[in-house]
């Protein structure tokens, strides 16, 4: 199996377009995943009876194969980017919801009581005390969800989308390994870079977790 470097040279534009499209699908999924799981996690954290239900539901959704989710969405949203993003979002929920609930759980009761004693309203306590303190655990979830989404986008190649995944179908149909290798390497690269950037974001957002020299 040899790499045809001239093919890569001739297709840098295509590779760039596919990489951008790939990243866009994965990041949209994480964004919508957070948008859905943050309020749900707050509810799950405060209303005990709903907690098991919400976490169980996200677990069940996770057992549905990714290709199946895409396919089951076909009657709703067809062969579109929307289908890809909805499918990936469903997958991010299990990690994001669980980690956000665990993050909120990890906030010490005394800290919350101190905020209350200082006259901070519950919603403000949530925004300025609880969520920031839960951030390291939430960010751990965001990192897993991002890497997972980046890897999963390529499954959507079977419904005509899939970013870099299109290189896999292309290489498969033409019995030509170069695009496949390029696709795998670029996917791994995207995942590593995105993960490193998220670590940097977390470092900037949580100055209090750094050990004082």
């Amino acid at each position, binding site marked *: 199996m040899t790499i045809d470097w001239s093919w890569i040279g001739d297709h840098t534009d295509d590779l760039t377009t596919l990489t951008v499209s790939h990243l866009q699908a994965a990041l949209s999924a994480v964004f919508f995943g957070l948008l859905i799981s943050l309020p749900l996690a707050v509810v799950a954290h405060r209303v005990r009876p709903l907690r098991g239900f919400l976490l169980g539901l996200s677990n069940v959704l996770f057992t549905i194969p990714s290709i199946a989710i895409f*396919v089951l969405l076909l009657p709703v949203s067809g062969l579109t980017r929307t289908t890809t993003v909805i499918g990936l979002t469903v997958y991010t929920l299990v990690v994001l919801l669980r980690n956000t609930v665990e993050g909120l759980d990890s906030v010490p009761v005394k800290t919350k009581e101190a905020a209350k004693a200082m006259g901070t309203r519950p919603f403000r306590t949530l925004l300025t005390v609880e969520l920031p303190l839960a951030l390291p655990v939430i960010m751990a979830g965001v990192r897993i969800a991002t890497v997972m989404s980046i890897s999963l986008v390529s499954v959507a190649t079977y419904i005509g989308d899939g970013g870099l995944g299109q290189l896999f179908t292309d290489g498969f149909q033409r019995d030509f390994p170069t695009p496949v290798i390029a696709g795998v390497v670029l996917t791994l690269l995207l995942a590593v870079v995105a993960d490193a950037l998220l670590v940097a974001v977390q470092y900037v957002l949580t100055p209090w977790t750094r050990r004082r020299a």
Partner: protein
Amino acid sequence: MYELFKDLGSWLTSGDQWSGYDGIAHRLAEHLQYSLLATLIAMAIGLPLGLLIGHTGRGAFVAINLASFGRALPTVGLVVLVFLASGLSMWPVYIALVALAVPSIVTNTYAGMTAVDPDVKDAARGQGMRWHQVLFQVELPLALPLIMTGLRLALIQVVATATIAAYVSFGGLGRYVFDGLAQRDLVQVMGGAVLVAVVAIALDLALSGVQRFLFRHRPA
């Protein structure tokens, strides 16, 4: 929409659909065969590795990076790549499925081993237990719940992904998904997808039942 679900219902329940070479019963057996064999191979690789790393405390860095690498590896790409390298054989399917399952098994086994109270291990050694006795009689039983969680996660992922065997001309329930996509037969595609999801959920429930039975004497 309603028509579609009605057709799906009759597709799933018709006797003809269940019998024969391309019948659901045969495809289901194939799917289970790929999934279980791949999970067993992954266990044979992942369990000793996770136990070793957890017991010695060495190589944890490798284990954690292996896991994130495994998560990032696109399965479709891996299958196609191995297919192009090896030609028409079961290698692409098994390599991809095992590569998918090993990280979950290793990281959860390792996590279970590190969660064992060091005082308990010290006590075991203090009583004169040899390393293998500490490993198999103390650490392993205590780490077992997390190890089981890892196995369940791996099995779900493998069952879901075994769909891909059909993409490289083999059988399993993925046959319906890919044949249906090629024939623009949405009912068949959805039938296959529903079956895979049901198998994944059923196996997960079965394993969680086994887990609950094994640990019925332990406080939650």
